[in-house]
C-alpha cells in the first residue's frame, strides 16, 4: 500500500480500560478522499478506535500518524493536530450558551486567533455549507436535532480539517431528521472530504462508502468494499452481524 497517500495511519493500536482490553491490535490506513464506514456490535471497540484517532482516548500502545505527524509523540502539539481532525459526536455536544455561529467560530477565534469578522465570515460559510445559513443567530435549544448535528458538522468543517471523524452521527436523531444529516455527509463526500464514520446507516454505507470495516472484540475482522461486506462477506462473524443488521432495518 502506498503509505504516502495514507492520511491516517494506525499501527498495532491497543487500548485497555483497566483490566479490559477494548482494542487488541488495530492496523488501519485511511487514504485521502476516502470514505470508510466502521460497523460492528456494541462493545466491539469501534467508538474507542475512532476516539483514539484524535486522542480523546489515550491509546495504551501502538502508533497513529495523521498527515505524517506522530499523534502520540510527546513533542507533538496535540491541539494543532486536532484542528486537522474534525469530530462529530452522537449527542452533538453543541455549546448551549452560544449561538450556532458562536459554536462554529469559537475555535477559529481562540485556537486559530482569527479576528472576529473573519471568523464570522468563515463560520457563516460553514453554516451555509450544511444548509443553515439563516440559523446563525439561533441557540442550540431553538434548533431541531438534525439542525444541531449539522451545526456540529459545520463547527468541524470551519477549521478546514483533513479528516472528519463521525461517531454515530445519526443515532440520536428521530428517523425523519436523519436524512438531512446524511445529505450533508453526502455533499462532503462529493467534495472530496476524507471521512471515517462509525454508523449503522446501511443504505448510506452501501451507496457512499469506499470501504466498510467490520470490527468485533477489539479487532478488525474483515474489511472491503460495501458490496463484499454486505453481500458476500468472507468471515462467518461478519455474515452473522450483517444478517442481524439487515433483519433489524
Amino acid at each position, binding site marked *: 500500500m502506498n503509505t504516502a497517500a495514507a492520511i491516517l495511519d494506525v499501527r498495532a493500536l491497543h487500548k485497555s480500560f483497566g483490566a479490559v482490553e477494548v482494542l487488541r491490535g488495530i492496523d488501519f490506513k485511511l487514504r485521502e478522499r476516502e470514505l470508510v464506514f466502521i460497523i460492528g456490535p456494541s462493545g466491539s471497540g469501534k467508538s474507542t478506535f475512532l476516539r483514539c484517532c484524535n486522542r*480523546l482516548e489515550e491509546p495504551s500502545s501502538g502508533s497513529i500518524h495523521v498527515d505524517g505527524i506522530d499523534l502520540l509523540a510527546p513533542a507533538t502539539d496535540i491541539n494543532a493536530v*486536532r484542528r486537522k481532525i474534525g*469530530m462529530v*459526536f452522537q449527542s452533538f455536544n453543541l455549546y448551549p450558551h452560544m449561538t450556532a455561529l458562536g459554536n462554529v467560530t469559537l*475555535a477559529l477565534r481562540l*485556537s486559530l486567533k482569527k479576528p472576529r469578522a473573519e471568523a464570522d465570515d468563515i463560520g457563516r460559510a460553514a453554516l451555509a455549507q450544511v444548509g443553515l445559513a439563516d440559523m446563525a443567530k439561533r441557540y442550540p435549544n431553538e434548533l431541531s436535532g438534525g439542525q444541531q448535528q449539522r451545526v456540529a458538522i459545520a463547527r468541524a468543517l470551519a477549521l478546514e480539517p483533513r479528516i472528519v471523524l463521525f461517531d454515530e452521527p445519526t443515532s440520536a436523531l428521530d428517523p425523519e431528521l436523519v436524512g438531512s444529516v446524511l445529505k450533508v455527509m453526502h455533499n462532503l463526500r462529493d467534495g472530496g472530504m476524507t471521512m471515517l464514520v462509525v454508523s449503522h446507516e446501511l443504505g448510506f454505507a452501501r451507496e457512499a462508502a469506499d470501504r466498510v470495516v467490520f470490527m468485533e472484540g477489539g479487532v478488525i475482522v474483515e474489511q472491503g468494499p460495501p458490496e463484499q461486506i454486505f453481500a458476500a462477506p468472507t468471515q462467518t462473524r461478519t455474515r452473522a452481524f450483517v444478517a442481524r443488521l439487515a433483519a433489524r432495518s
Partner: protein
Amino acid sequence: MDRFLDTFFNLEVMARYLPKILSGMLVTTYLGIGVVVSGLAAGLVLAVIRSFGVRPLNALIVLVVDMLRTVPPLVLIVLFFYGLPAAGVPLDGLGSTWLALSLVLAAFAEEIYWAGILSVSKGQWEAARSTGLGFLTTLIWVILPQAIRLAIPPLTNRTIAITKNTALGQVVAVQEILYQAYSGLSFSYNPSPLTLGALAYLILFVPVVIAGRWIETRFSWKR
C-alpha cells in the same frame, strides 16, 4: 404601649444616634462588598485550580475548604484578630473580619463552583478539545459559563448569608451597624438604636435579596 414605644421607638434617642448608624451602614456596605468580591473571586480561582486535577493540591484545597466550612466565622474573626498580629501580621478588626468572612465565602463558593463544573457534561469538554482548544481555554469559554449559570442560585443564597455576618465584626470593634447600635444602647440606656440598626440592615439587605432573585431568574436558562 407607650412604654414599649418609648423603649424601642424613642424618636429623640433615634435622632441622636442616626448619624452613627449611618456611618455604620457605610462600614457594613464596604465591608460587605469587599467580602463578596474577594470571596467569590477566591472561590472561583480555587475551583479552577482544582479542575487541573493535581492530586496533592486538590487534597489540600479540600482540607482547607472543609475546615473553613466547619469553624464558626466568629471564631475565625477572633482568631485572626488576636492571632495574626502576634504572628507579625498587623491586622485590625476590620481586616480580620474581612479576611475571615472572605475565606469562609471562598470555601463555600469553591464547592458550589466545583459542583457546577462537574455537572457540565463530558461531551462539552470533548467537543471543545476536539477543535484544538486547550484545557484552560475550554474551561474558561465553554465550561465555566455553563457551570456559573448552574452555580448562581446557591451562590446567591450563600453570599447573602455570609454578608450578613459582617455584624460579627462588632466583637472586634469594627464600627459597622451593630457596633454603632450597641454602643448607642450602652450610652443611652435605651434600645431604640438597635431598632434603628435593624432598619438599617433591612434597608441594606432587602435590595440585595431582590437583586439575588433577579439574578437567579435572569440566569436560569433552558438547556
